[in-house]
């Protein structure tokens, strides 16, 4: 293409900045924590139920924060409802081929599920006295159905943002179809890390937390492989990362957010009691930097 790696280099920036980066982070946490909580509900053991509740406690506030961030980021925030209802006809506004349109609905419905599960968790944890609330929690049929559908929606919310970036014409974002996969895997990784941190904060040293840590370890390895695939799939566009963003990507995402946490997992004697919490905190920081680099490095092209 005569020196231009991609036709995406001729586009203009939508100026999705820090609000969107924060949304990608909190949306990922909301979806990921809900999914892990549902997983623990469905495949864990009864003694792990407090850990599942922790996931629901995190997911709902993160959904609320996500909705606020997205609304504030609009240049006409009072028209946020135009995403859901057609402004002129008031008919439902739904475009299945537009990730932003489907994402708006997914966030709304996921918000309802996470609210219901949040209520159920409050009731089960004796923080709210409402007998009906028990129905929202497994092992009852309704509780299981909520966990399965909510978990799937959670994954959608965590991953659609990457697909949304790919379904544009911006450099880097639309030069690889793998960002959705990367965001899904990263959401699972940062969510497991946050739940590990919170569990340690409350001094829950249960086998469930150890399982979560083991899960995070393998998810980080998977994320590392996906990151390599992303760089390969970018082809000549990957050279766009030969700058400060690339350095941040390498040091912040790969070294700080992946390699050091993995090393801390293998060498448990390095920081003693703080090994697990330090590893989880670094994974969270790396996950945030990943979103910063993906969103902002496109502007530098």
């Amino acid at each position: 293409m005569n020196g231009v790696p991609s036709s995406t280099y001729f586009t203009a920036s939508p100026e999705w900045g820090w609000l969107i980066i924060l949304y990608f982070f909190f949306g990922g946490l909301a979806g990921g924590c809900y999914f892990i909580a549902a997983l623990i509900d469905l495949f864990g053991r009864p003694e792990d139920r407090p850990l599942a509740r922790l996931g629901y406690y995190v997911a709902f506030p993160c959904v609320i924060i996500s909705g606020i961030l997205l609304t504030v980021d609009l240049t006409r925030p009072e028209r946020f409802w135009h995403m859901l209802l057609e402004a002129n006809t008031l008919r439902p506004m739904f475009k299945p081929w537009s990730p932003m349109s489907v994402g708006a609905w997914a966030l709304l419905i996921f918000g309802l599920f996470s609210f219901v599960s949040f209520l159920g968790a409050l009731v089960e944890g004796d923080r709210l006295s409402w007998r009906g609330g028990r129905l929202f929690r497994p092992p009852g049929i309704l509780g299981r159905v909520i966990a399965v559908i909510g978990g799937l929606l959670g994954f959608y919310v965590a991953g659609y943002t990457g697909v949304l970036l790919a379904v544009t014409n911006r450099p880097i974002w639309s030069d690889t179809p793998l960002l959705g996969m990367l965001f899904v895997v990263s959401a699972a990784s940062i969510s497991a890390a946050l739940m590990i941190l919170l569990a340690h904060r409350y001094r829950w040293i249960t086998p469930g937390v150890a399982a979560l840590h083991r899960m995070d370890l393998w998810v980080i390895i998977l994320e590392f492989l996906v990151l390599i695939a992303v760089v390969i799939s970018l082809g000549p566009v990957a050279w766009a990362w030969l700058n400060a963003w690339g350095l941040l990507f390498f040091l912040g995402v790969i070294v700080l957010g992946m390699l050091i946490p993995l090393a801390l997992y293998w060498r448990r004697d390095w920081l003693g009691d703080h090994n697990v919490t330090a590893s989880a905190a670094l994974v969270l920081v790396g996950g945030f930097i990943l979103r910063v680099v993906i969103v902002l490095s496109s502007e530098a092209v």
Partner: protein
Amino acid sequence: MAEPMGFYTDTTVCIGCKACEVACKEWNQLPATNGGLNTLSGDSYDNTRRLDGIHWRHVKFIEQFTEDRKDGRWLLMSDVCKHCVHAACLEVCPTNAIIRTEFDTVVIQSDTCNGCRDCIAACPFGVIDINPASGTAQKCTLCYDRLQGGMEPACSKACPTDSIQFGTIRELRDRANKRVQQLHDGGEKRAYLYGADEKMLGGLNSFYLLVDRPEVYGLPPDPKMPSRNLLSGSLYSIFGAILVGLIGIFSFRNRGLREHQEVRP
């Protein structure tokens, strides 16, 4: 539906007068840059810089000179929204603010747009931006209001050299092909049409006659639809979700099995 209408811009006769820019601003009541205080870009005679929410026409000045400046040429081009037949902005718009009109042009309805800016990221030509006066995404409407009143767009009406021509797409393509032939016959073999046929996004309803590679004019050589990544991106995401789900199930199940094995007599 009326017959598809559009622009044919013959860049070889553009003189860089910017009458199109002025006419567009006047008719569409677009605000001045920087409150009317002129700022110089330092880039040739181009102080408009780019198409955005308040510049719906942009005359580009491309200087092609040898280092000693003894030989060279100017390439001048009045850029505008391409009103693509397969429009990326229209495809992604989550509010249906972007519509296709009866003239086969693409228009953003300012009273519906909520400023999500997905269209800005989707446009392969970098045409759209937020107009700070309305807080909504805006671009050339191909003077939809004038077309409805039976008039031609302000820019083509103002163009003194007929570099910008308005008409039915069929007629414009005929005229453009004849002009290319004329240029070839006269020795300018580099002349070609950009976006005049269906191969590029189904056809650009604002197409160009160029005499150099598209990227020299700041145009993408191979613009694509955003949806090209939709299916593959979704399938990879689902694959990622399945892998993470399996890791999760294995992590929790595995522990259960091990503990069972440990307590087994």
